[in-house]
């Protein structure tokens, strides 16, 4: 009887081997096709980005000059030498984005910490907060600009830095909240339990152990948010107005790079266009530098972990 069953087993075995080998070549070809398709998709995604960057560098590099970087704008339609530069816009972007970050990042991180660490399960309030946060993420930036206009501009009586920073921070907060919450959730619970077992209070565990573990993720969120708001134009149109003057007060209008790019591109003059390209290149470079600097700052005390096994 044993021979029969083993015979049956080996014939089943043979059947399986036949089926698997018969389909094998077809699978190999399919595998190759899908790989090629995947690579094509990657290229399709990268090529537009690459071509934009190339275009900006090509047109903008020639426009970069000391004059561009340090002079306020000159008369519209003037020659290149008297066209001035975009210095107020550079200053404005740094100030408005900086102020928006000072407002938006702490609020975003604290809300993210609340949602991850202190909001358990599906209670009503945390669920509502998450819902509102998701809605805010999708809000058109022009609408946020209008909100900024109605609240700050009308209240203060003029277009102002404050209004611009306020609107940008509204765009920034949901991004930071969502990424902070997700990153904190990924920190394994065993770390928190280790902290509890040492008799450490919850907020200290959250701040000094959990947040520290999630540091690089949270920072990615911040970098993403800053990159996003640095390029937002619609809210700025309605809140800071734009000007040719340098910064004077938080309650006065100011210029910013996205706004200046838009205005320069709208003019019919070549010098204006070339300045616009220069401004675009500058904006990309500023965002890049701030990302790199933030990352370096975060890694200052970080460890390079090499697995050492005894």
């Amino acid at each position: 009887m044993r021979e029969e069953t083993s015979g049956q087993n080996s014939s089943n075995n043979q059947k399986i081997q036949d089926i698997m080998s018969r389909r094998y070549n077809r699978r190999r070809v399919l595998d190759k096709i899908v790989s090629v398709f995947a690579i094509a998709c990657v290229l399709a995604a990268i090529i537009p980005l690459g071509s934009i960057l190339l275009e900006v560098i090509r047109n903008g590099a020639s426009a970069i000059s000391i004059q561009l970087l340090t002079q306020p704008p000159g008369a519209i339609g003037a020659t290149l030498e008297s066209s001035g530069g975009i210095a107020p816009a550079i200053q404005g972007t740094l100030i408005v984005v900086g102020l928006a970050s000072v407002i938006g990042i702490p609020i975003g991180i604290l809300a993210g910490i609340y949602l991850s660490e202190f909001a358990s399960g599906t209670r009503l309030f945390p669920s509502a907060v998450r819902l509102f946060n998701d809605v805010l993420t999708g809000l058109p930036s022009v609408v946020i600009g209008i909100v900024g206009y109605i609240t700050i501009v009308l209240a203060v009586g003029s277009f102002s830095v404050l209004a611009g920073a306020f609107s940008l921070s509204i765009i920034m907060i949901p991004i930071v909240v969502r990424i902070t919450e997700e990153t904190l959730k990924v920190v394994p619970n065993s770390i928190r339990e280790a902290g509890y077992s040492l008799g450490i209070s919850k907020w200290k565990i959250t701040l000094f152990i959990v947040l520290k573990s999630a540091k690089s993720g949270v920072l990615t969120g911040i970098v993403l948010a800053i990159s996003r708001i640095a390029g937002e134009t619609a809210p700025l149109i309605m809140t800071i107005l734009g000007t040719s003057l340098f910064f004077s007060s938080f309650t006065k209008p100011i210029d910013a790079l996205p706004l200046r790019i838009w205005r320069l591109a709208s003019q019919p003059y070549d010098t204006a266009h070339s300045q616009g390209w220069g401004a675009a290149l500058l904006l990309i470079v500023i965002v890049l530098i701030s990302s790199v600097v933030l990352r370096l700052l975060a890694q200052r005390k970080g460890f390079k972990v090499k697995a050492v096994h005894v």
Partner: protein
Amino acid sequence: MATDGEAINDPLLKVISSKKEENYYVNRLRYKVSIKNLDAWFGTKQVLKNINLDIKSNVATAIIGPSGCGKTTLIRCLNRMHEMTLGASAKGCVVIDNNTNIYDKSVDPVIIKRRIGMVFQKPNPFPTMSVFDNVAAGLKLNGVRDKRLINDIVEESLKSAALWDEVKNELDKPGIGLSGGQQQRLCIARALAMQPEVLLMDEPTSALDPIASSKIEELIHALKKEVTIITVTHNMLQAARVADFTAFMYIGELIEYGPTNQIFKTPHKELTERYISGKFG
């Protein structure tokens, strides 16, 4: 601890000095931990039924039983970590030193964990901290500032955890860079730095290889002179090697408890005998 003549004002140190002396004489007390009528639930499911158990001081007590019998739940109730899980609850008395019921309303569950430390099954050193900072974490985050004191305690704890010689020149290396066995000893040192009176160990060697496991077992032998140790294990041989007393649990109930020799050689209950001889679990 030899400290020179400077005034020591650190409140944590005052507690430590008096507890060290207390521990020395604690043999005079009958029981370190008395568990009375302890019930525990996950939601509506009852996982511990009327546990009554008296743990002696300065000995190692093992809790054995098949998977799901409630061993881990029991020790998590002993330092009030059980109720931190969503939906979990516990009811009953757990009395330390015959004078403090940790389930009493006046007891702060955070502070009680400084007296009853815990080591987990899978080593969990803090990933962003060095070896030194890991051991010092409990002290620093609870307000101890005196650097010399912290240095002394870290060294002492690492020595008690039999890890000092291996890491003394690499205290600044990240904690997670150590091997599994070393990480577990690091976690033990971290728990010991708080100078606990009781150390709870949840299957401390089940994630480790035999050599690392035997190091930890030697550790338990040495440690129990200073700390009362309660360890959960499903390795019966380990319980026989390491523990002075053994408690056998089955489906949430305490079946039998006594000196290890008696439990393993002449168990009183049939269920115990069947488990010991491997007939189930």
